[in-house]
């Protein structure tokens, strides 16, 4: 008698266990922290390839809507990146679910950068120094272009003249704008010297 009750119990436990595995209707909500780099809508996270979760711009946390059960394997990956994101790094995104592991996930995304190359006209002497905030570049005599440090997509830039070249005066046209999404022809900055 006893052993048959035990057996039934085991069978029931097994059945429940299987249901929990297959159904994914447990009580653990898979969640995580976003440490930055999500400045635009478009990021979609998936767990085991499904359960799509759209992350809005500037979100600092996320939580999948479907609850999972203890010991379910989760594997969070990116299905779609925001248009200005190069890649996202997911930490602790793959594990077996328990109260600890479901809350240890973190994501940080890296925003694309694009070269900022400005046109220089009429520069015959040396000493011209251009700045884009803290980025400072001395332009050699005779240069027709000057590459500044790369700029984040959708980020601002503002070219200004820190120092005029010897014997010439330069001015900047269209020096400030927001970086577009291309690597070339992405700005209209012209520094004209006379």
């Amino acid at each position, binding site marked *: 008698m006893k052993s048959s009750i035990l057996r039934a119990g085991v069978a029931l436990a097994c059945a429940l266990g299987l249901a929990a595995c297959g159904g994914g209707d447990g009580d653990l909500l898979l969640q995580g922290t976003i440490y930055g780099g999500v400045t635009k809508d478009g990021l979609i996270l998936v767990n085991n390839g499904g359960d799509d979760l759209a992350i809005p711009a500037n979100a600092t946390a996320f939580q999948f809507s479907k609850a999972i059960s203890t010991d379910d394997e989760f594997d969070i990956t990116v299905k779609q990146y925001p248009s200005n994101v190069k890649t996202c790094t997911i930490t602790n995104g793959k594990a077996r679910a328990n109260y600890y592991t479901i809350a240890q996930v973190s994501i940080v995304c890296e925003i694309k950068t694009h070269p900022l190359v400005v046109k220089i006209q009429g520069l015959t002497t040396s000493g011209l120094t251009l700045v*884009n905030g803290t980025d400072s570049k001395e332009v050699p005599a005779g240069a027709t272009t000057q590459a500044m440090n790369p700029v984040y997509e959708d980020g601002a*830039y*503002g070219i*200004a003249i820190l120092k005029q070249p010897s014997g010439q005066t330069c001015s900047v046209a269209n020096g400030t704008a927001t970086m577009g999404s291309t690597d070339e022809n992405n700005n209209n900055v012209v520094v004209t010297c006379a």
Partner: protein
Amino acid sequence: MKFPFAQGALALTALLTLASCGGGKETFPITVTVYNVLYDGLVLSTNGQDVAVPKPADTSKPVTVTFPNQIEYGQSYRVLPKGLVYDEKAGTITGTASYPQHQTCDVSTSYPYNLPASGTAGQLAAIQIYYVCTINSYPLTGKVTGLKGTGLTLANGSGVTPVAVTPAVDANNVVTGADVALTMNPVAFNTTYGVTVLTQPAGQTCTVSGGANGNGTGTMDETTEKVDPTTQKNGVNNLLVECK
């Protein structure tokens, strides 16, 4: 034959153990590792001892120093930049610290280097403290004149978020065109700045002047740091954005 030998060994062991317990207190060296030391001038102090932390040959590497004298078991310590005084009752630290030039240093807050700078010798197996220095930043401020339209944003290059400026309004929310204070993000010592108009306000055109070079640009260095009369702090306070 065997027994007496074992007994002898035991007695010897006991004797040695006792000797190590009683024979003078255990002492602890205090070691401090400091990250991002870019200039000379940092002096750390504890238990009446000073140790200078010079700028390393390779400034990307940390500097590790050890105080000249070890402290005894049970003795308390508190490693502070020299000149700072800890008030035990108030729990505050006051004074003018001997930091590296143009830098400020503090106890590391990032794991696993966030170890306390104070304690009692013997609490931990070894006294190891981590400090981190950061370059000082100075305010970059000024004013916007004649602003009546909305939409003005000012950029300082690409590293920082542009600053939006809204026109001054009176008690009835009517635009007055009065001067508006301008506060850009602080600028680190020895780096350049260049303030530009990213977006013009509706119906107006603004131009930037001021800064160390007169055209909204400059380098935050010793010669161009200007003392702010209200805060008595160094920084640039003469940016002028004129809107017409």
